[in-house]
C-alpha cells in the first residue's frame, strides 16, 4: 500500500475551524495516509495535539514555519 500525502490549508482560520477542517479532510483518507495541515492559529498547536490523542490519529510532526505559521503532519489511524 502506498502512503499518500494530502494537504490542507487552514491558514487565516481561527478556533475551532482548523480542527473541523482537519477532521473533515482526514475522513476522506485511507488508513496510513498523511495529512499535512498548514495553519496560522497559535491555538491549533495544542488543539491538534488534543485532536490526535482523542481520535487516535498520530501527530508525526508539529513545527513552526519561518513566516509565523505552523505545519502539522498527521497520519490517519
Amino acid at each position, binding site marked *: 500500500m502506498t502512503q499518500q500525502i494530502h494537504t490542507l490549508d487552514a491558514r487565516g482560520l481561527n478556533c475551532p475551524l482548523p*480542527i*473541523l477542517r482537519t477532521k473533515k479532510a482526514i475522513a476522506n483518507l485511507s488508513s496510513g495516509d498523511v495529512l499535512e495541515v498548514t495553519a*496560522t492559529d497559535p491555538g491549533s498547536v495544542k488543539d491538534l495535539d488534543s485532536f490526535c490523542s482523542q481520535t487516535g490519529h498520530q501527530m508525526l510532526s508539529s513545527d513552526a514555519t519561518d513566516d509565523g505559521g505552523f505545519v502539522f503532519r498527521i497520519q490517519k489511524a
Partner: protein
Amino acid sequence: MSSHASRMVERPDDLDAWFDRKFEQKMAEREAAHVPSMTIIATKGTMDMAYPPFILASTAAALGWDVSLFFTFYGLNLLKRDLDLKVTPLGNPAMPMKMPQGPAWLQGKELSVPTSVMSLMPGFQNMATNMMLKTIDKKGVARIDELRSLCIEAEVKLVACQMTVDLFDYRKDEFIPEIEEWVGAASFLPRAQTADVNLFI
C-alpha cells in the same frame, strides 16, 4: 498441617491478583469502547452567546463525541431559519468597542464612552453588531450560521424546548428542519444523566 495452612493463605492472594488483573483489563476495554458524550443547554440568543455552544458542540463532534444541544428560552433564537443575531454592549460592560476598520489612528482604539451611554443612541445595537461581524470576518472566526451547519453535518443532535415555543407563540416553521425533537425537561434529563459533560450556557 503447616503446608495446608500456607495454601489457605496463598489462595486468596492469587485470587486477588487474578481479580486485579482481570478488573484492570475489563476497565481498559470498557474505557476504549466508551464514546464520550456531552449535553449543553443553550439559553441565550445573542451573537456572542451563540459561540460557546456551537464551538464546543462542533469541536466535540470532531473529536468523535456524541453531542446533544438543548435550546431553551432565548436560546431557541439560534435555531431560527433566518439567523439575525445581534450583540449589544448594553449590560455588557466588558465588551470591547474597537473600530474594525477606518483610519489607522482609530482602528483598534477603545471608544471611551460608557456602553450604557452608547446604547441610548438609536441604531447603536445594529452598529455594534456590524462592527462585531466585521471583526469576526477579519480574524478568520467562523460566523454562527457556518458553525451551526458544521454541527448539523457532524450529526450534533439539536433538541428544542417545546414550552418556549408555546410561551413566545413561535411557529415551528420559523425554525430549521434539522431539529431532532421538541421536548421538555423530562426528556433532556435522562440524556444529561449519562453524559460525561453537561454545560449550561
